[in-house]
């Protein structure tokens, strides 16, 4: 019903951008999950088939993708908890922006060790 001619981008702040992030990561995870269930289902077909597909994941490019996925999940999870606190904790709305910085802080804290380990494994090659 809105025939507003497109204007500039709305300059929202923490709340809006965290929501954009939450939405984008949510959809990304969802599509990954679809694929992930399908590939895991190959275990039902035969060990060879499963291993063949999983083996193709074991290259640096896929490792980067996986890292991105984990980054998305971690952000979505922590921000999800932030959203829940906004909804149920009395002071949630007041501290929403601060909590977002907390989410980002936690995200860094989790991602740094993970990336170090994950990428070093990926690039040095296991086996």
């Amino acid at each position, binding site marked *: *019903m*809105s*025939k*507003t*001619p497109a*204007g*500039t*981008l*709305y*300059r*929202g*702040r*923490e*709340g*809006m951008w965290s*929501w954009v992030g939450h*939405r984008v990561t949510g959809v990304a995870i969802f599509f990954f999950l679809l694929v992930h269930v399908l590939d895991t289902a190959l275990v039902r077909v035969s060990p060879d088939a499963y291993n063949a597909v999983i083996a193709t994941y074991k290259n640096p490019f896929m490792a980067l993708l996986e890292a991105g996925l984990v980054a998305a999940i971690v952000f979505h999870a922590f921000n999800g908890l932030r*959203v829940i606190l*906004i*909804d*149920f904790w009395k002071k*949630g*709305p*007041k501290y*929403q*922006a601060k909590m977002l910085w907390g989410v980002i802080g936690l995200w860094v804290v989790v991602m740094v060790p993970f990336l170090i380990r994950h990428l070093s494994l990926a690039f040095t090659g296991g086996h």
Partner: protein
Amino acid sequence: MTAQNTEPVEPASKVDLAPGVGGGGEIPSFDITLKVRRYNPEVSEEARWDEFKLTMYGTDRVLDALHKVKWEHDGSVSFRRSCAHGVCGSDAMRINGRNRLACKTLLKDLDTSKPITVEPIKGLPVEKDLIVDMEPFFQSYREIMPFLISSGHEPTRERLQSPEDRERFDDTTKCILCAACTSSCPVFWTDGQYFGPAAIVNAHRFIFDSRDDAGDMRLEILNDREGVWRCRTTFNCSEACPRGIQVTKAIAEVKQAVLNRRI
């Protein structure tokens, strides 16, 4: 010159005013570029940006700049305004990308080295330039039954209400129905069907009024596909509200009230 005592002392009959106190010197003037988004279907279906170079003064607001444009440059620039000091809610618009009241936004608080952009609020049909159709907005407002409903017999004098009960909904009584909140809400932009924060704020004002007996009905109305559950806590509304109403908090309280009633 400040009195140190807490006792209200009689102020001095005469004091030395520091030079420049109360705006002693020259009123600073500065140049700005105002970019106004223009749209007039009588002329063209296309919207466009018009730029105006203006010299403005110390305490001028965006509304003053718009007036200068309308009164001295282009009389066809159209926008609503009335009170000019932030109490009537006529001139919510998007200034440098954010919803504000033009009459409450001082030019000197904006970055005047870049053009200042002014656009209509988002999500409501634009009628002309900065004027949008407010009817969908008021429609949502009317739907939440924004009036006191009380059963039981009318007292002869006033209904009693403790100061604490009165305080409970104070924040949401401040709303001037300017639509800055609703038109800043990304969910409202999508299809315009969401009730929007302003309607919820005004429902809140009655739901938490101890004199009102129709809270359940309002909660029922807002427990709708287009009701409170569509809010994704993006806080644009709280940040846009020129009255400083804690809009998202009010919405959270209404959500809790619906939950508590149902469970």
